[in-house]
Structures are given as C-alpha cells and as structure tokens.
C-alpha cells in the first residue's frame, strides 16, 4: 500500500494558515502602495523597499507550506521529501531576498554595487544552496548573519543620511531589525524546534503588530 500524507491537526493548520494569510495580505498591501509611488517617481529606493515586502510576504506564505509538511506524519517517499526541500529552498530564497532588498534600499545611494539586482538574487540563491547543504539549523544562522549585515547597513545609512539628528532608536530602524528578528523566530517554529505554545502566540502577535506599525507609518505618509 502506498504511504499516505497525513496533515497536522486541522485547528493548528487553520491557525497557522490564518496567520500566514494575514501577514501575506499586510505585506502585499505595503508592496502595492510602495509600487504605485515607485511608478510615479521611479525612485530606486522605493523599488527595493517595495520588493522587501513582496519577498517577506512570500517567505511567510512558504513558511506555512513548510510548516504543514514538517508537522505532518512523514511517509518515506521521494515525492514528499522533494516537495519539502523545494518549499524550504523557496522560503530561504524569499527570506534572503527580502533582507537583501532592505539592505539595498538603505545602501543603494552609497555604492553602485547595491544597485545590481542580479547580484542580489545570485546571493540569495547561494545562501539557499548553503542552507540546504549544511547541517540542520544553518538556515537560522545564515538568516541571523544577514540580520547582522542589515544592522551594518542601518549604521551606514544613519551616519551618511541622517539630517534630522534624531537618535537611531527614534527612527524607523528598530522596526526593521525587529521585523526580521521576529521573522527568524517564526522560522524556529517551522523547523520543529520545541517552542511553548504561549511563546508561539507571542511571536505571532508581535510579528503582526510590527508589520501593522510599519504599514501605518507607510500609509500615513503615502496612502
């Protein structure tokens, strides 16, 4: 008899699905609004910034797919395994591209390198391959390393372009870091690392809150 794919309990799947759809919708609204302003101005920073949310939304959606696969009873057949690997690869690629697009949006005015989108996607593919070939857990480490690079990009951006002399904490930067920090925490849940249920809810709640704060600030200005 052929092995059967058994999904996780329905209520958990619905919760995860609802959460992923909500995050995806917030990210898509942000992408759509930013894109419309980019079309009007053709300002590169807006292009990179809008793509940050396109890929972040995609990464959250793919995280849900990975969640369903990893929390299902896993029959030992190749098709299932291939689908899981394929989903993880796309999730890591989308996540890396999202962080890299944010880094680009903060640094593109400093050097021409950060205007090369082919390089960005090549890097994202390279990081995906590295994640898949390395030991389990390396995905989280690679994403955390990207977060450190993002931190450097923020410091560079602040030093070069801050004209209002606000402190770093008084600007949007902490929201960038927290959004992707919570994204990495979201990844933890996908990889079946033991996480208490209350902590999972806290992570989900705060992830949505952070995106809503960003959406509010974006829509207040250009909505």
């Amino acid at each position, binding site marked *: 008899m052929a092995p059967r794919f058994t999904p996780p309990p329905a209520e958990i799947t619905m919760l995860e699905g609802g959460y992923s759809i909500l995050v995806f919708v917030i990210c898509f609204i942000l992408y759509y609004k930013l894109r419309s*302003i980019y079309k009007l*101005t053709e*300002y590169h920073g807006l292009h990179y*910034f809008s793509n940050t949310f396109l890929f972040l939304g995609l990464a959250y959606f793919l995280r849900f797919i990975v969640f369903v696969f990893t929390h299902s009873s896993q029959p030992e057949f190749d098709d299932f395994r291939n689908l899981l690997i394929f989903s993880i690869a796309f999730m890591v690629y989308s996540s890396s591209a999202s962080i890299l697009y944010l880094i680009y*949006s903060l640094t593109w005015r400093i050097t021409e390198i950060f205007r090369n989108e082919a390089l960005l996607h090549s890097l994202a593919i390279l990081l995906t391959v590295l994640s898949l070939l390395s030991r389990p857990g390396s995905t989280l480490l690679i994403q955390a390393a990207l977060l450190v690079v993002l931190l450097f990009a923020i410091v560079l951006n602040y030093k070069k*372009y801050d004209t209002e002399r606000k402190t770093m904490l008084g600007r949007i930067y902490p929201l960038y870091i927290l959004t992707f920090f919570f994204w990495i925490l979201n990844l933890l849940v996908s990889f079946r690392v033991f996480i208490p249920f209350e902590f999972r809810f806290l992570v989900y709640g705060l992830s949505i809150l952070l995106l809503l704060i960003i959406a509010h*600030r974006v829509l207040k*200005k*250009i909505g």
Partner: protein
Amino acid sequence: MRKERRERLEIIYDILRIIVSHGNSILPTPLLRLSNLSTQNFNRYMAELIEKGFVREVFDEDGKKYYTLTDKGFKFIQKYNKIREFIEEFGL
C-alpha cells in the same frame, strides 16, 4: 550639506516648481536656464513630463511655446513633499 548631483525626483520637482513660480507659464529658454540642466537632459525630462501628463505645451497668438502644469502636475508637487518626507523617514 547640498548633494553634488541632484536626484531624478528632485530634478522633476525643481522643473515643476519653476513653472509654478512663473505664474504657471514659462518659455522653454528661461526654464532651461533655471533648471540648470544640459539641453539634452532638459529635453529628455520635458518629454517625460509631458508624456506622464505633468506638463503640457501651450502656444500663444504669436506661436510662442510655453510650458504649463496640469492638475496631475500640481498633485505631484503636493505629493512630492510627502514622498520626500517618507524617503527620509525610512532612510531610502
């Protein structure tokens, strides 16, 4: 500190502002001079602004060409400050 090279967005805004500050009607030659662009770049920007519907050409009785802002151009000027603030606030 003043940036050495104006960004595209800033150039478009400057051109539109110059037209408005001249009673929303200006001849090409003074606009070219005040916009501080090369003739080639000026023509490129004006063609784009006309194509986007921000600016239109009008001719007087003597056949002289003037540039004037459309409603869309005025809306862009209003929105520009918000976009600029947004770009600065988000470090883009």
